[in-house]
């Protein structure tokens, strides 16, 4: 393995001479990246599943519990005032991050999945009937698939899918026959977690709105990796998760257009989401708290603040540029390896840094186990997108996905591991 790396190392030094973005320095901010897996250094390439956390996020979680812990919004003491201020500050920061939406329009949830469930259960049940149509795409994650399948089962509304072509790009040729006048919602991912495809959300949003449909964008894979402007894409709903962008787990967001959120019934009932309660009566709090019943993940939200600071200090444009370079290098290196087949677009401009592949007849799970024995963490399976993986004619794929702390050297390690796996599993 060592000897195979030499060529890659020279190449790496040449390629990484990009000013202003220094992954080696970034790595030092992520304590987990110093750990070993067995006797090997950890090479973390499972960022589409979740990203690692910088020291500032870990410290913020720690310090919240050490010095600030109190329930939000209700207390009249110093701790409660401080925790409420920090919690709401995280919301404001997040609202700015996705293009300057109003704080009232940004609901704090557990994750993108919960956010979509709120829309399907609250907006969907009120607005969708038999004879209506729900439009999705063939590349959706189960999170943006199953809530709609359930709603369709419940209401009798039909599901229609925008197809993908052989490159894993949405085929918009017959879009007018898919987004029809009876379409009530068009819900799609901005970036595929399997293919890496970046979808033309602004264009699809215009078509959805022209048909009178509501437009939901799943930003779970895009918000962490590229500049996002919810207003520019004219989304009615936008959902994403903090843990895929340096933040803690258990924190996600639902952006909703104010008038639509106001027209919706709450999703959960209880404390915090009410204004006045009598034994026979309750009415609802104003936005965003109407959708935030019960004590929220206060530490998680506060811990997300430094994650956003970290991303902002690097700049989302620079992050996107860095990942474009990594993805191009990964596609180049992996394409050289006998047996490797890469899925999704080859054009770097139209894809992100989630690279799915198969390696001859080697089952992706064997591949993941093999790479793990060399300290390399990848994902293998159907990536919570069973219909898409089936559509590709597969049962599973292996996936490497990148983030700010990854370098070409990680990709060299991956490539060397894959070449080694080919021999190990008996192909010469």
């Amino acid at each position, binding site marked *: 393995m060592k000897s195979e790396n030499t060529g890659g190392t020279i190449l790496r030094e040449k390629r990484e001479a990009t000013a202003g973005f220094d992954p080696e320095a970034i790595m030092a901010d992520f304590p987990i990246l110093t750990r070993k897996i*067995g*006797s090997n250094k950890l090479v973390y390439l499972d960022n589409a599943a979740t990203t690692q956390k910088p020291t500032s996020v870990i410290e913020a979680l720690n310090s919240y519990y050490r010095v600030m812990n109190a329930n939000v919004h209700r207390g009249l003491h110093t701790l409660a005032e401080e925790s409420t201020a920090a919690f709401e500050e995280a919301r404001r920061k997040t609202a700015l991050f996705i293009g300057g939406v109003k704080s009232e329009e940004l609901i704090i949830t557990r994750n993108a999945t919960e956010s979509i469930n709120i829309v399907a259960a609250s907006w969907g049940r009120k607005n969708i009937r038999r004879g209506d149509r729900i439009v999705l795409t063939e590349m959706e994650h189960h999170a943006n698939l199953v809530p709609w399948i359930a709603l369709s089962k419940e209401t009798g509304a039909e599901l229609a899918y925008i197809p993908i072509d052989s490159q894993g790009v949405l085929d918009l040729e017959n879009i007018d026959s898919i987004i029809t006048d009876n379409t009530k919602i068009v819900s799609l991912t901005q970036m595929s977690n399997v293919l890496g495809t970046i979808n033309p959300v602004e264009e699809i949003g215009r078509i959805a709105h022209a048909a009178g449909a509501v437009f939901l964008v799943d930003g779970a894979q895009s918000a962490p990796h590229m500049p996002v402007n919810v207003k520019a894409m004219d989304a009615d709903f936008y959902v994403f998760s903090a843990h895929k962008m340096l933040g803690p787990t258990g924190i996600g967001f639902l952006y909703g257009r104010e008038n639509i959120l106001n027209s919706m019934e709450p999703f959960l009932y209880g404390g915090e989401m009410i204004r006045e309660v009598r034994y026979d009566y309750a009415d609802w709090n104003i936005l965003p708290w109407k959708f935030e019943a019960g004590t929220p993940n206060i530490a998680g939200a506060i811990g997300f603040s430094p994650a956003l600071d970290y991303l902002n200090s690097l700049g989302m444009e620079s992050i996107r540029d860095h990942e474009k370079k990594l993805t191009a290098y990964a596609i180049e290196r992996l394409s050289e390896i006998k047996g490797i087949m890469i899925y999704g677009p080859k054009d770097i401009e139209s894809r992100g840094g989630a690279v799915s592949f198969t390696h001859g007849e080697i089952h992706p799970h*064997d591949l993941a*186990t093999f790479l793990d024995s060399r300290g390399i963490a990848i994902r293998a399976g159907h990536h919570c997108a069973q219909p898409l993986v089936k559509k590709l004619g597969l*049962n599973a794929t292996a996936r490497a996905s990148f983030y700010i702390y990854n370098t070409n050297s990680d990709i060299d390690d991956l490539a060397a591991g894959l070449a080694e796996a080919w021999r190990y599993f008996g192909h010469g």
Partner: protein
Amino acid sequence: MGDNLDDLYRDIIMDHYKYPRGKKKLEKADVKNEGKNPVCGDEIEVSLKVNSGKVEDISVECIGCAISVASGSMLADAIRGKTIDEVKKIAANIKAVLIGEKAEEAVELGDLEALEGVNKFPVRVKCALLSWTTLIDGLEAWETGEGKNGSTTE
């Protein structure tokens, strides 16, 4: 996990994975069952010909990872010619080996002992179990005359 890869992919397992036994389809099967682990994408079909209470012939067709393919292939080798009672005992022993427990009634496992390494890889136990669970579910359905709609270990 870490470094003990060769403990999982032992030579015997790799040999069964590369050259699976018992793949040929049976003309007429008495026992037939399908197993499927949708999360992994593994699929298996186990068919038996039973004569005078013994497994006369067996076919195992498996699409899956090295562990599930090898386990199915080793199963085919191990139970050919055995009585139904012996087959059940072997299956119970394999299950015990995989989850790191002692079987109630120990039997000689021979090559099958190579599957022992799988118990250090908890996420892969279900791969090794798929063929055995599919076999036993199929046998039970055959004995009770009930139809079996497939098995899973996920």
